[in-house]
């Protein structure tokens, strides 16, 4: 495993992560984010000082797993309730712009 070490955020990396995050930044914003995120990464690199070989990860502080319930029908939101906050609705569905388009 490689350490976080001297990782830095460039404008290009900001763009790549922004694409994954479905966010957009202009050059000025991207440069400001690059500088701030680089400083934060410098700070978190202090974790490399610790040897964590053989240490189990903790993703959760409660010792619970696979909480199950009987698969029985229960009351749920009505269609009208579910659509009440919809930016656009049509025919009892959420209406969104095209997903697949002709080229």
């Amino acid at each position: 495993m490689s350490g976080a070490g001297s990782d830095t955020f460039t404008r290009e990396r900001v763009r790549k992560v922004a694409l994954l995050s479905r966010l957009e930044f202009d050059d000025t914003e991207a440069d400001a984010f690059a500088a701030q995120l680089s400083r934060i990464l410098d700070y978190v690199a202090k974790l490399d000082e610790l040897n964590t070989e053989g240490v189990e990860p903790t993703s959760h502080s409660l010792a619970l797993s696979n909480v199950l319930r009987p698969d029985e029908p229960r009351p749920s939101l009505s269609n009208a309730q579910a659509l009440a906050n919809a930016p656009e609705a049509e025919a009892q569905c959420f209406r969104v712009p095209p997903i697949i388009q002709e080229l």
Partner: protein
Amino acid sequence: MTINDADVPALTIARIERQLAGGELTSLELTRACLARVEAIEPRVGAFLTVLADDALTQADAADAARGDGARGPLLGVPLALKDNLCTTGRPTTCASKILADFRPPYDATAVARLRRAGAVFLGKTNLDEFAMGSSCENSGFHPTANPWDLARVPGGSSGGSAAAVAAEMCPGALGSDTGGSIRQPAALCGVVGLKPTYGLVSRYGLVAFASSLDQIGPFARTVEDAAILLEAIAGHDPLDSTSAPIEPPAFRRSLGRPVAGLRIGLPKEYFIPGVVPEVESAVRAAVEALAAQGAEVIELSLPHTDYATAVYYLCATAEASSNLARYDGAQYGYRTPATRNIIEMFTRTRTEGFGAEVKRRIMLGTYALSAGFYDAYYLKALKVRTLVRRDFERAFEQVDVIATPTSPTPAFKAGEKTADPLQMYLSDIFTISANLAGLPGISLPCGFTAAGLPIGLQLIAPAFGEERMLQVAHAYEQSQEWWKRTPALAL
């Protein structure tokens, strides 16, 4: 009895309960007085995002009627405020984000539903840093909140609105949420009591998710007893939250007043470091001495991984946030950017226009920490160090019953002081984050004031589900002092 604004400061939930039960006061009178105080003070403090005056008066009326029919209960007719990331049926729940500006949830959060069933009155929804991401309330998408003790200073965050509302005596209690200190730090900065329960004690159902493995709902109040009353009302197993602990919570109020003689209080050396303002350190040490004077044993100890907790937190919490906040895409609810050609453009522009800078920063950091090639170096490494932080506490609690620390290294800072440097802002949570990482309960209560008149908070941390012991110690200290009686000089 008709109460006027001047009477509101003296009102604690415990006293209100007695006055309502004794017929000296009605919920309607009290609710009107609280609303009048909100109206008088809000222009300067800005604790609320939404004031629900009509709802509150209707609920107060219903509480009085129920009492007339024989109903009883410590929260029946008591006016409270709710942080605006707790879902309230049909009423705004914005998370202080433009992306949820017009959102009206179709259901109540379980904690809200429990308070509703107990007959509480909801005055309104309080301000926060957008999606609870921040330590000063300056990241609110709508307006900042001022600290009632000094209006040029921040109330802390992210639950700054709830802390300020209680400190300014607009209401005797409120709910907040705490992911890395968002209840305890503003409680300290505003001079009130704030309690983060053990992870799993209070259902997270209907709390808008920030970092699901760290978030907990908890109370703000003027006194430890009031915090215990509120915790009792909201705690307990909920099948709607798969991380809700399957336990029957105790009657927390019952442990109050028990002597602390013989209890062992741990002082971790990593929390008494040069970055702590000297007035804060001396007030916290004096508080521990006051407990020692009641017979508690003070034991110096070490939590060696404390210095790494903030780094762990800003990787774990941002990773979880990047996933939780993926749902804000403009498709089903919330803001949607107008007129886009395809769905990807809609997602991207909706999020870019709807989220503020700090939320974007955390989504970016979390997405990066989880991305291919970096997952092991950042996210997995952070989860392993989280284990080391947890083990520090397990070892410490073999020696002591509770741990005492400063809640925050500094008193309330000036508005604008830390906004330009996100890392400096993150470091204001260094003493509260570890309890979230380890899932432990923590409470902040007033333990003094600086020479400039700013409140100082004492933090107590207990083992998981050790709230009774924690409240017992907090109450014993509080009642040996007069700090909780002080109120900010906000002229009406």
